[in-house]
């Protein structure tokens, strides 16, 4: 899977989480800038943890227990790269 399609998938995962909030203004995954920092998008620690869980399940990778919180990527583009790298490492 190339990185750009991984980024699209993780973007869709994050959008799905944010859309569970009735007041969310996110209607479409494409509204999420893949280079925007999560902190600037208002993503909180609970959203982030749920995002990681769903990414782990979707790509069959283990990240939450392997990485320190400060080592987690801060953008969707960063997540795309991390998932590809982790999946490739097997």
């Amino acid at each position, binding site marked *: 899977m190339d990185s750009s399609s991984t980024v699209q998938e993780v973007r869709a995962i994050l959008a799905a989480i944010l859309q569970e909030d009735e007041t969310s203004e996110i209607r479409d995954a494409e509204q999420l800038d893949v280079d925007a920092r999560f902190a*600037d998008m*208002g993503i909180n620690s*609970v959203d982030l*943890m*749920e995002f990681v869980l769903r990414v782990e399940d979707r790509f069959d990778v283990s990240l*939450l*227990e392997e990485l320190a919180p400060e080592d987690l990527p801060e953008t969707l583009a960063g997540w795309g790269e991390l998932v590809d790298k982790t999946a490739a490492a097997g």
Partner: protein
Amino acid sequence: MSHSTTTDLSPAPLLDAFETFNGRYIDLDRELTIDADELRSMSRSIHAALVAAGLVRNERVIFCVGNGPQFVAAFFAVLSSDAAPLLVHCDTPPAELLRYAREFGARKILTDSYNAETLASITASTHTVDAGHGYSLAFGAVDDSHADFVNSFPALGGVPLHPTSGTTGRPKIAIRHAVAAVAEGRQYADAMEITAEDNLLCVVPMTHGYGYGTCMTTALLRSATVYTIRKFNPRSTARALTQHPITAFFATPAVLDLLLAARKPDDPVPRRVLSAGAPLSTRTATRFHEATGQWAMPLYGTTETGGATVAYGVAEPCMDANIGPPMPPIEAAIRPIEDADELEAGLGRVALKTPAVMAGYLRPSGVDASGIEDGWFTTGDIGYIDERGCINLAGRESEFINVFGMKVVPSEVESVIAAYPGVTDVKVYAGKHRSGSEIVKACIAAAEDFDVAALRQHCQEQLIHYKRPEMIIRLDAVPRSPLGKIIKDQLP
């Protein structure tokens, strides 16, 4: 206000519970089991090291220790020194620890979150305390000659102290003396039928009143076994519930949501799953029931009163506003609200009468017990009591923000933000999260080219994670009325 309170502030009831404890603490992070005798031995070692390093009776100690056997051992080491542990979250950054120490006149800091080298950045002298079994803590003395150090607090030893938002939105310290702590533990143990056969899973911070009351005091009183996880992680929690014979799990709504995302469909769940810290929404309660076949039970309390209600053994599931009936022997009543035209009849302030009520707030001028009348404490929550005797919450008067069960006092965050260069006005307030919890939002007045990312970095250094604003909105001016009051409707 007086410091010569008639309340018995002796630590003896808690020390007795610790001495007679016959259970175990199992540290799942280190895969280490510490039995009761080893725990007491650890505590004696820490006590000796602290005294040798200069801890004296009646001193306040900022107690920043994470979940695990070392929490219990270190807590009783401080208490048995006739000093007063002031419990703060183990993720509290050094700058915030120092602020607390100065604001509440604590001369000492004890932590397992930072080593002696890091602690030395905020203390005048530091020591490493070897607690045995591979645990170590850092102990430091704060420079009490600093201008911000409040020197006028009364000397009170042997009393656990808990920070609270109180009912006025100003940070305060509740004196949760041993008599109150043990009364709370007994109430929990009786209401949830906790025995020595029970295995409790603790992922909520033991520095917080909920984790402290359930996973320390209750466990000590009933000699239960406690499995601890220092920092909640949904994967390791799901694994703990699968691999160990857990019989009671203390969670928050956000923990339950994340656990649902992490567990496998057939994973076991204990017969007692409690949820506290924030309202248990219908969404979370229903999802949890659909996935596990069990209802999570809300538990409600305040720092001032300890745990007050638990919906264990109630025929109908409780959720949303319904937080269940008071635990015996607690009495609940609804106090009328003056000038409350828009409120429905029957709504009022929730008042509680409990033997677990605090002795009062710690003030520089003494112990302030003025909020307790004939054993009754009026909370900042608004609600009513239904025909089943369950308390239902409809709102609150106090201004704190409830971030996934952790209470944030806006004025504390505002002070940190206001101190940052370029911020000319600030309002910190609650935003809504999809789980039903709240998030911290900050509206600031600053120039158009103001560096919001740099302000975020400042907050990261000065505030623990749950107090940091999730959203910082820069405006030319914070919306205020001509009289200077915040216009809430116009906040973004």
